[in-house]
């Protein structure tokens, strides 16, 4: 960001906007702290000017608010309320918060401008925006006090049905474990470090166990490092086993704990939050329906740990997995007709495939009301019959004639022959007994 020698809040906000987006993209929440004396600048580039021209912006000079990332804008005014209210400064600053969809807050000095009052103002900001998130990680009776960093953001599931933002519990309860291959890179809202902390009897944090070089042997951190901690045990086993722990964050809200390696030496316990809801990951099914393997008749992971109950299969297959018929482009239709023709020339060996493809075409043609196609393919099969070489198996002619006849009947559209569920079956001939081809 360049230096500017005059108050120009818009440029500053544009600069912040660009830096945050370049570095962290549009999904990471960011707190923007604007420290100002409450003067808004003069002339072009002043906040008053920016706001006055706000409605006339195009795409090239878009006003930086609302920020294109989840954000909170905190405006720290080095002035007290009375001073600000004497001009329209406060109104303009409030407009800024409004433009950021109401995300943010204005702080002013209580009393005269002095170091103590400024400190107290920033103290309020710290309390509001920078308090660490403390929680208790639980796995049955095994527990650890932890700090979750960064603070998990409240989440709105559906602005209409459930407009109240959900916040995560301070009790993070492990409900079970799943292999990494089974959870397979699930989508998450956010991810957080889970840092074990040492609390004193009053529940105040006394240390993270992280030691400075100059600390002496018996410092609180040194001692905390030597007391067994569940987080370290959990992290070690998750890493070795290649598993994640499923953790309950609230009603119908879950996440996962796993080991995240930063480098070869450094690794950490991390927590990712799934989207709240009964079924955040389709391949796991409903979370409430996940239970202990000991309740199953036989171990779903196999006695040799060689299988898995995941992923769950959906009831209906997707189009790309079920051989649908699409004739929107002529090539789709041509391919399907050619398949029938190719098999027709290999009768009776390909009797089963021939009828399978024929029935697929028949069904689609009936659904699309494309009866002319049935007639056309019938004509084609009849012609194939006349083109059969002398060496052809006698059954081929019988099957082709039979198939053509059946298609013609279907093309009349009358209900007795054009039933969707009806299938054309191979003609039983004296020769067809030898046809043993199986699909």
């Amino acid at each position, binding site marked *: 960001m360049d230096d500017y020698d005059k108050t120009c809040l818009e440029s500053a906000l544009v600069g912040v906007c660009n830096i945050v987006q370049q570095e962290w*993209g549009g999904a990471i929440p960011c707190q923007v702290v604007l420290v100002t004396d409450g003067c808004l600048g003069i002339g072009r580039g002043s906040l008053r000017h920016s706001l006055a021209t706000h409605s006339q912006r195009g795409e090239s000079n878009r006003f930086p608010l609302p920020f294109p990332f989840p954000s909170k804008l905190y405006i720290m005014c080095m002035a007290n309320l009375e001073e600000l209210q004497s001009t329209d400064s406060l109104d303009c600053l409030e407009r800024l918060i409004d433009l950021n969809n109401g995300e943010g807050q204005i702080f002013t000095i209580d009393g005269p401008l002095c170091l103590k009052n400024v400190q107290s103002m920033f103290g309020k900001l710290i309390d509001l925006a920078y308090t660490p998130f403390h929680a208790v990680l639980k796995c049955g009776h095994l527990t650890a006090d932890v700090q979750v960093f960064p603070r998990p953001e409240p989440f709105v599931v559906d602005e209409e049905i459930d407009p109240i933002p959900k916040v995560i519990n301070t009790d993070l309860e492990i409900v079970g474990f799943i292999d990494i291959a089974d959870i397979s890179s699930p989508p998450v809202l956010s991810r957080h470090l889970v840092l074990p902390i040492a609390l004193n009897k009053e529940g105040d944090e006394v240390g993270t166990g992280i030691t400075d070089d100059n600390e002496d042997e018996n410092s609180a951190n040194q001692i905390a490092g030597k007391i067994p901690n569940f987080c370290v045990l959990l992290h070690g086993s998750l890493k070795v086993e290649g598993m994640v722990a499923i953790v309950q964050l609230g009603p119908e809200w879950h996440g996962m704990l796993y080991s995240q390696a930063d480098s070869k030496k450094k690794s950490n316990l991390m927590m990712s939050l799934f989207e709240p809801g009964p079924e955040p990951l389709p391949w796991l099914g409903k979370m409430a329906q996940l239970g202990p393997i000991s309740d199953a008749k036989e171990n779903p992971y196999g006695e040799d740990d060689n299988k898995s109950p995941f992923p769950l299969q959906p009831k209906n297959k997707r189009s790309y997995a079920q051989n649908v018929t699409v004739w*929107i482009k002529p090539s789709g239709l041509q391919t399907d007709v050619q398949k029938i023709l190719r098999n027709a020339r290999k009768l009776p060996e390909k009797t089963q495939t021939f009828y399978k493809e024929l029935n697929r075409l028949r069904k689609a043609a009936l659904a699309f009301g494309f009866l002319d196609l049935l007639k056309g*393919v019938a004509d084609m099969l009849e012609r194939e019959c006349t083109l059969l070489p002398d060496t052809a198996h006698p059954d081929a002619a019988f099957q082709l004639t039979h198939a053509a006849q059946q298609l013609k009947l279907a093309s009349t559209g009358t209900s007795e022959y054009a039933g969707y569920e009806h299938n054309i079956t191979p003609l039983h001939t004296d020769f067809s007994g030898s046809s043993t081809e199986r699909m």
Partner: protein
Amino acid sequence: MKIFSESHKTVFVVDHCPYMAESCRQHVEFDMLVKNRTQGIIPLAPISKSLWTCSVESSMEYCRIMYDIFPFKKLVNFIVSDSGAHVLNSWTQEDQNLQELMAALAAVGPPNPRADPECCSILHGLVAAVETLCKITEYQHEARTLLMENAERVGNRGRIICITNAKSDSHVRMLEDCVQETIHEHNKLAANSDHLMQIQKCELVLIHTYAVGEDSLVSDRPKKEEEQHANTSANYDVELLHHKDAHVDFLKSGDTHIGGSSREGSFKETITLKWCTPRTNNIELHYCTGAYRISPVDVNSRPSSCLTNFLLNGRSVLLEQPRKSGSKVISHMLSSHGGEIFLHVLSSSRSILEDPPSISEGCGGRVTDYRITDFGEFMRENRLTPFLDPRYKIDGSLEIPLERAKDQLEKHTRYWPMIISQTTIFNMQAVVPLASVIVKESLTEEDVLNCQKTIYNLVDMERKNDPLPISTVGTRGKGPKRDEQYRIMWNELETLVRAHINNSEKHQRVLECLMACRSKPPEEEERKKRGRKREDKEDKSEKAVKDYEQEKSWQDSERLKGILERGKEELAEAEIIKDSPDSPEPPNKKPLVEMDETPPIEKSKGPVSLLSLWSNRINTANSRKHQEFAGRLNSVNNRAELYQHLKEENGMETTENGKASRQ
């Protein structure tokens, strides 16, 4: 996000009047193979689709894509309109699939060109469409039931896609007015009904079809975008459709080369992503910020099916996104889960958690003897599996599998020392048969038997004076004596079993067996020890229990204490001595069973000498060379009783080895 937006309900109204039977006048060659085979054969004349066929194909294609991308919560109702309205399906989830719709369409058949056009009207279908939009869906019903007094928050919006042949602008206006009026009327009806909902918003999409010219039926695809990913050659592009959020970061960043504003721009925007050789395997956990189902634009084309089959077979494909700056970044991953293909959005921006402190630097980081392998085993035992069929508890209420999973974790962790030096029993192979079943909710007779066998086995070990894996970490000198080691081990085993005695009567039996069998030091020794200093006596397992209690939340520890307390009371009643320095001296100390004449074991004299090490080795080596004399094998303190069978034959009991008097 809104679940009940316009896209929750889509009604297709397709005109089935005689006009739609007309040809679209676009020819389809279908007789292709003949050309390159037989000379002199005239290919069959090309055929053409009717307007009806084109309309049905397009709407089915819309449904195909929608069911692929949004298989739930986005519903289609299909209506055919001629002299009346034919509603082909309902809003229920079972009716939402291509097969059902295709079968229903086949039953309707193509329009009859000889029907009286005056009798037919698209209005029948439009009125039915409004009617059907008022009908509540399963999802709406569920949400309303859940919200109770806030049920009015559940919205009812929808979209009508009408494919017809409009005669004029005024005809179009007439259709619009009719829909508006019908909505007005039906909203009045819905206001007084529990099964109907008023329509808050309805989007009407009229698609005008006519023959000749361009086929105008390619439906607009709101809220979806296309994506290509090229496999080096442009010939192998596979165009995929998916939810637009898969590119939300890309669009927000303004780093688009498509030009134009992403907001007002056309819905159909294509972003080209390049296949990169997968360097990934399933075991890797990617940081993924979204996963969206995909559908190929041209589902049956060779490149499409090549890609989808590759993915359905369990492989993943990483995709690169070119940036304006010319650099590339891996931004997406295609992967299938249970036969569904998802486009995963991978985070490609800088992490906010750069250079975090390693876990080894934090609390508990200096401890080096965590029971990592044991906890790994614990995790595998506590893996989850889906239970799709509802189960019921004894009282008839629905059992929630996830709650069962939590219950199991609670049971399995009642006594679970975190480090190796805090435990003896979990370092002993001999304890495994008991430790692995005692945590269960209920035991079989066989389980109880196995637990008893384990206990007898331990008694046997003690009698044979087998060494125990007692940690000497932190203790000065030689560590606890052998009998002290066994005392520690028995105490710990008791703690484990006692934590589960309320599970069932069979658990209680295991404890009874344990209490009957476990060794207790002779009275004098006990008294002597009491004289000694406390800290010398505090053993590891008791420490472990204390640590563990401190770590638990107070309710849990209270509960456990309750169990222990109750245990103590029961013990006192049974006049069994709780072998703990904290428990008061029982007034009349008399062992319940008199089997435990502690064998006069060789007092261990400090650390093992070189001589004894050597002779042990020689003895072991020698013992392998001959079969051991049966008497010595069964001997107690190297003394074997001879002619035992005589005693048995005489009906006398042998009390020598203590076993007979036990049961």
